Every structure is written in C-alpha cells, then in structure tokens.
C-alpha cells in the first residue's frame, strides 16, 4: 500500500506562541485506513488535521516547515480550494460551515464549485443521501436538523466531491450516544466500501477506537508524535478508554479495543468479582435538604413544548446527571433552573424562590450556571482581571475567586487571556466565577465537551467536592463515562418527559444506550468504572 497522506518533517509555529505546536512530524498514512489522532486537549491535534488541506497555515497564520503531501500533491503548491476534489475537511462545529439552507443544496455545493456535470451531481447526491441515511431530510432546512443529522450532512457535503481523503475534527463530540453511533457506522461504511482514507481526531476514544486501523498520538508540549496499531499504541498512551484500562489492569493480550473483545476476555475477571458485588456501596440514602424543585414544568416555544410536565427535586449533597437525546430538553431544563426563562406552566423554585423573578445578583447567590460554552461567562482580557471583576460583582473580598481557581485546577498564569487557556482551565475559570457567589445549586451544561480524560477526572473530583459542601450539582451530559464516574443520581429525559429517575448505577446499567463500557463488559454485575473494580480487587487482596 502506498502512502496516501505523507508528513515530511512538518513543524508549525504560530506567531504569538513561544514554542512550536508541532515539531518534526514524520508520518505516512496508507490508502484506505481509518487513522485516529488522539492526545490531550490543546496538544495540536486540530492543527495537524488542518495541515492536510492547507488550512494551516493559510487560514491560521503562523509558519509551517516541511511538506505535507496528499496523493502526491503538495499542500504548499495549491490553495485549499484547489484540493477540494482530493481532501474533504469537516470542522468541529458542523453548523458553522453551512453555506446554503437545505440539505440537498448543501450536499451539491462542493460539486457546483468543482464544475461537476448536472447529471453526475444528481447521481452523487442520491448516493450520499443513501450512504448517510439522509434521504428523509433531503429537503429540510439545515437549521431544523438535529445535531447528528447536521454532522452527517457536513460529512456528506464534502463526500459528494468524491474525495480520497476525509479529515474530521471531533465528529462525535457534540452528539448523544445513539447519534454518534450513526455517524461512526456511516464512516466505517465509507472506509470499507469505498476505500476512503479517514483521518479523525476524537476525545471520546471509547466510541471510536474500535473502528481505527491506526492511531497517532499527539502528546503535546513538544514531545514527539508516535503512531502504530491501536492495540500497541494504547498499551501506554496518555489517554485510553475504559475497556483498554481494564485490559491494562488485567494484562489482557491482545489489548481489547471494543466491548465485545473485552467481554470475551473478561470471564475470569467476572468470576473473581462475583463475590465482591455485595460490597458495592449502595448510594447513601441521607436526609438531605431540598435545594431546588421543579413542579409540573411546561416549557417551550410557541406551540411546541420542549418540556411537558416535568417534576423533579434536587437535594443538597447530590450530583445529578440529566441525560437524553439531543433536543430532549436537557438544556431547557437547566435554563429554567437558572431562571433565564419564565415557565409556560408549572413552577421552578431554588431555595424557596423563583429564580426568574429574582434580580440577577440575587439569583446568582442561589443558582450558578456554567453554559455549554464557558467562554460566554468571561469578558476580560486576562485571568487576573476576570477574577478581580468576579470578586467585585459578588461583593467578596479581593482574591476569593483566584483562591477558588487555584483550588479547582492549581495555578494558572494570571496574565493569560481566557481564550488562551486549555478547555479544562477555561471551564475551571468559569466555574470559579460562578462559585464565588456561593450558590446552593450548581448547573453545568455539557461540561465535558472537548475535555480530555485527565481534565474529566479533575472535573469529577471538583464536582464531588461541591456536593460534599452541601450543594446540589446538576449536569446535563451525553458522556456516559462521566455519569458513571461522578453522578449519584441520573435522570433521563425523552420527548420532554422524565422517563427514568433514580440512582445512577441502576439507571445506566439497565440501559443499552447509557451503560458505560465497564458495565457492558461486566454485565450483569453492576460495576461502573475501572476505579471501582480496582478498589474492589485491592480490598480483596488486603483481606483475603
């Protein structure tokens, strides 16, 4: 097999950055492979992807050394638009790249630019509609599609040019588990049936690693890039999905990459764990103070109800995960708890008051909300200014926010612009700004989007602390692994109604969609995380 994409001593330096983002990258990706790019957030994965069709350095600025060539064509010779017939690039936010207003027009856009004959265009659009199962929405307006549909349209919109290489930046990070599976199975079909070479970055390894032929690790911080077969690279990669961690723990060989492989190797482990199941601590049932309550909440826009008669109570000291499909009403629920909207019917109370009726400064002392894009909460040009402003707003003594921030993520350079922080640091800063008012209810909307495993673990610790201080923590999330690790209670919304509400362990282990990988591997035993399994095994060794 010949190399489809070749990196030859590639280095990228952005003007302001003191150190290079990528140095001396040498890689060859053979034709027809699905290559997964992994690494901590901010390590340069997106930069690596964007060099493939020349968006780096043309759109990003900065300097690039070395040569990237795709099918023998060098990206330094041709601008991105001339490579459109060879490389299809789909960015992180599919909706941000839409040019037209309906699905069919969007699919045809690239072919119109390439001057493809009308009959060929018709045929290719039909092919792609079938390939990505989009035929039912072909005439719909793009803004009315769900996240998974938008992502598939964005992929289809580059696929119609019949490119030989597909470059995808976090294609499933915004999607619920079911929609992510739709997208990934479509990608797998492209690789198997058409022989497209796919280069894809993704944080949610548990979703994608089983589809990958090879893995490229971008460790960041100037460390050299490594690549190889998934089972070899993941043995000691800095990031790994739960099945791989389980495999590392038990020394399984070959290292399992999918739940199916792990289940086949897990027989002996299940036997050892069986007597320990009774030791799984049941969720503590304490008499807790009710912090917030939602009664018969009906919310929506016009005639369309997003939430339809929701009853929920949130007590101090618990971490509640709200799950459900994209568009099931998770964000709407959080917005109402934060008092951003008046309910159509029903009531919302936080510590006895309706947050929508309170003045903003009063409301934030009761409920703190970190929106999906935490940078919305940040306005100042440096971390220090941001912290000082937050102290002033919340009428706390200077330095309070900064101390909170240090407690959350350790030291952060106070002179940095919030935009230059890593995703995890930015989330922590927004959280510190919210927490300085000491709200009893803390809401987080999709907090793990874009976070690597390390940052997720840190976030889990922080959320546990907040709950231990007696606050109620509510997070809306698609990330089943995070739910498994941090949540005491899980609420599943579907079609605007609560369809499940109970201890997280019961709710997620009984759902094929929301079960974390460890639960799937060790079913019917209700283990949720690798840490839990490790702790149980350790305890057994200590007291035989």
């Amino acid at each position: 097999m010949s190399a489809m994409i070749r990196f030859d001593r590639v280095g990228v330096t952005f003007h302001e950055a003191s150190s290079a983002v990528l140095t001396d990258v040498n890689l060859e990706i053979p034709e027809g492979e699905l290559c997964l790019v992994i690494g901590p957030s901010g390590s340069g994965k997106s930069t690596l992807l964007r060099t493939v069709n020349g968006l780096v350095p043309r759109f990003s600025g900065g300097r690039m050394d070395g040569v990237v060539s795709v099918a023998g064509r060098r990206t330094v010779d041709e601008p991105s638009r001339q490579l459109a017939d060879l490389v299809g690039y789909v960015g992180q936010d599919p909706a941000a790249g839409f040019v037209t207003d309906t699905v069919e027009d969007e699919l045809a856009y690239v072919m119109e630019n390439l001057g493809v004959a009308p009959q060929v265009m018709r045929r290719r659009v039909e092919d792609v509609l079938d390939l990505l199962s989009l035929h039912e929405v072909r005439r719909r307006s793009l803004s009315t599609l769900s996240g998974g549909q938008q992502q598939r349209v964005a992929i289809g919109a580059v696929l119609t040019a019949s490119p030989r290489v597909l470059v995808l930046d976090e294609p499933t990070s915004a999607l619920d588990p079911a929609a992510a599976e739709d997208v990934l199975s479509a990608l797998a079909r492209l690789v198997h049936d058409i022989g497209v070479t796919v280069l894809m970055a993704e944080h949610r390894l548990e979703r994608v690693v089983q589809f990958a032929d090879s893995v490229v690790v971008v460790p960041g911080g100037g460390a050299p890039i490594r690549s190889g077969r998934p089972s070899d690279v993941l043995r000691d990669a800095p990031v790994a999905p739960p099945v791989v961690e389980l495999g590392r723990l038990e020394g399984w060989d070959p290292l399992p990459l999918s739940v199916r492989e792990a289940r086949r190797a897990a027989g002996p482990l299940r036997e050892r764990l069986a007597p320990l199941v009774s030791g799984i601590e049941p969720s503590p049932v304490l008499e807790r103070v009710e912090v917030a309550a939602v009664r018969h909440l009906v919310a929506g826009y016009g005639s369309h109800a997003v939430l339809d008669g929701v009853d929920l109570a949130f007590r101090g000291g618990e971490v509640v995960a709200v799950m459900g499909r994209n568009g099931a009403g998770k964000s709407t629920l959080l917005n109402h708890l934060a008092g951003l909207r008046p309910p159509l019917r029903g009531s919302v109370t936080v510590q006895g008051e309706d947050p929508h009726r309170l003045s903003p400064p009063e409301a934030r002392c009761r409920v703190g909300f970190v929106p999906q894009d935490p940078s919305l909460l940040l306005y100042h040009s440096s971390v220090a200014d941001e912290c000082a402003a937050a102290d002033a707003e919340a009428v706390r003594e200077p330095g309070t926010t900064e101390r909170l921030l240090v407690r959350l993520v350790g030291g952060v350079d106070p002179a940095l612009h919030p935009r230059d922080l890593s995703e995890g640091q930015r989330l922590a800063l927004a959280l510190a700004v919210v927490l300085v008012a000491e709200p009893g209810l803390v809401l987080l909307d999709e907090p793990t989007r874009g976070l690597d495993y390390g940052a997720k673990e840190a976030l889990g610790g922080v959320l546990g602390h907040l709950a231990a201080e007696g606050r109620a923590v509510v997070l809306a999330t698609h990330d089943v692994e995070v739910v498994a690790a941090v949540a005491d209670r899980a609420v599943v919304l579907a079609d605007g109604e609560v369809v499940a509400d109970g201890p997280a362990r019961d709710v997620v282990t009984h759902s094929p969609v929301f079960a974390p990988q460890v639960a799937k591997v060790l079913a019917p035993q209700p283990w949720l995380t690798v840490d839990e399994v490790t702790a149980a095994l350790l305890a057994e060794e200590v007291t035989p």
Partner: protein
Amino acid sequence: MNVTTSRRWRRVRSLHPLAWWVWSLGLAAAAMRMTNPLLLGLVIVVAGWVVAARRTDAPWGRTFSFALRLGAFLVVMRVVLAALFGLRVPGTVLFTLPIVELPSWAAGVNIGGPVTVELLLGAATEGLRLAAIVACFGAASALANPYRLLRSLPAVLYEVGVALTVALAIVPNTVLTAGRVREARRLRGRAVRGLRGLQGLAMPVLEGALERSVDLAASMDARGYGRRRAVSRVAVAVSTVALLAGLVGVGVGAYALLDAGAPSVLGLPVLSVGVLLLATGMVVAGRRVDRTRYRPDEWLWAEWVVVVTGAVAAVSVAVVAALDPDALTMPLFPLGWPAVPVVAVVGIGVAALAGVFTPLPVSTLTGLHVAATPPRASGDVDGGRDDALGLAEVS
C-alpha cells in the same frame, strides 16, 4: 388509472424566486401611479392574501408583517410632518397650530398654521401609496427564498452572491449571539438593560461574529469556493471593457429616457447598446468561473401565470391612467369619495390569482408542501428551536 395518478402526481418544488419579484414589481408599479385609497387598500390586501397563502415557515416568511408595520409608520409620519410643516391648503379647518415666526432667510418654510381635512387626507393617501409599495416589496421578500434567488444570479456575479449569502446568515446569528451573551451576563449578576448593559456586549458579539465568519470562510475554501479557470488576458480585458462601457451606456440611456429635457435619440438606442454590452461582458467574464448548477429552479407555466398576473395589474392601472386619470386619485378639491374604476379593480384582483395557481409552499421542517405535511410530532423538532443558551446543544 395510471394516467390519472401520474397527472395528479406533483413534484415538490417552490416557485422560481424571480417570478415572485417580477410579480411584486408589477403590483408596486400599479401602486406607484395612484393615490386612490380604495385601490391602494386593494393592492395591500392582494399582496397580504398571496403572502398568507404561499409563504413558508422560513425566517424570511415573517418580513411581510414587518413591511406592514413600516408602512403604517410611514403613513403616520407623513401625516404628522404635513400637519407641522406642510404647505397650507384651504378647506375645512380642523384645528390651528401656533405659527412659528422664522427669520427672513428661511422664507418659504412654514411651521404650524391651520390644519385642514384636505391637508391631512392628502398626506395620508400619499403615505398610503408608499405603504402599498413597501408592502409589495415585503411580499416579495416573504415569498421568495433569498438563497435560491442568489443562486439564479449569472455566473460572474456568483461570488458577490455568496458574499450576500454569508451576510444573510450572519445577521440572525449575531442576534442569537447577542441573546446568549445577554443571558450569560445575567448569570454573572450584571445589568442587562440600559447603557451599562450595552457596555461589554459589543465585544463578545463582534468576536462571535468574526469567529463564525472565519469558520465559514475556511469551510467554503475547503469546499472549492473561488476556484477559477485560467483564461487568456485578452478575454479578461474584453470583459472588463465591455462591462464598464455597458454600465455607462445603461446609465446614460436610463437618464435620457426618464429626463424629459434630454434629447430623445439618446434614450432607447443607448440603453439597448448598454444592455447588450453588459450582457456580453458578463458572458465573457462568466467563462472564468467553471461552475455548474445543481437542480436550477425551473421556469414552468406557474411562473408565467405569476408574472402575467403581476403585469396585468400594472397594465390595467396604466390603461385607467390614460383614459380616466382622475379615477386613480383621491378627490380633495372638492372633497369627495374616491372612484372605483372597474378595469383597475379587476386588474389588481387578477394579481391575487398568484396565490392560487402556484405550488404550495414547502415547509422547512419537513421539506414537503404544507398541505402534504403530516401533523407535527412534538419530539420531531430537535433543539434547533431551543433557546439561546441551549441552542449550542445542537450546533
């Protein structure tokens, strides 16, 4: 049996956007010639009825009500200004405003004075004429999909068209970002109203719009936007000269046609030469752009019906203007009831047929004609219609 089914089968399509614009121009041309409030009212009613029957649920479908509000504002402004500054006309005095004495150099301008029924009615009908014209354009923009309209531009204007498309997308998104930023400010307990609320709103909103534009530009570039074919220098020179000369010709010709003082030889011949040159220039320049079109909008009999009904409205009013010009005006001196010229009424009424002989509007939610749309399942609309902060769940 097969024959009947195939005859009843209709493809999902929307009317050619240009047809709607030609139709509304016809209606606007009719409105421009009259001050008869009955006929003007009829124009607005016809435009409104067609909009109600054929607009989609797309965002631009709401522009008609905005146009109506703008029209009402124009009428009120016109009346108020006439009462304050209008030339005093004799007639039934309603009330008298105090007259402001102005220095001698401002002679000819008067402020205040007696306000008569005739003065107000004259101003109101003038305002109504403007309102009717605005309503016609509002109708066109509510009925015609702007994206598809831009797609029917000639190849050479294609890139300008895309720039407009991007601008179209930026406006609603900026409004959306502003909403999110406002909500986020509330979360930090800051003022959301007044000057202090505005402070610091501009930066994040602009940043958001800029970031989005760069994302979109990257996406467009990666998908081949702006690819050009190599052409000879001669062709480039020819097209540039032809386009410039054509523009000058069209300008001079149009001026000569409209200005009664200009020599009439200059009029039509110069205009036609100009148009010809422009067309040549566009064709030659268009060769540089190697683009094809996916399913271009078709021009079928429904488009002809729409164009012809609009033209009938314009022509019928022109006929009345030639035969009985008084019938088109509001009789003020002496004050009387406006006439009801049958030809004009029927002509304008014919324009309403555009709301009958056209394909039903296509829903943005289902991509089907509205009549064929099954009842909407409540879970069907995903977060696309979610509120400002929640919207990020999808996008």
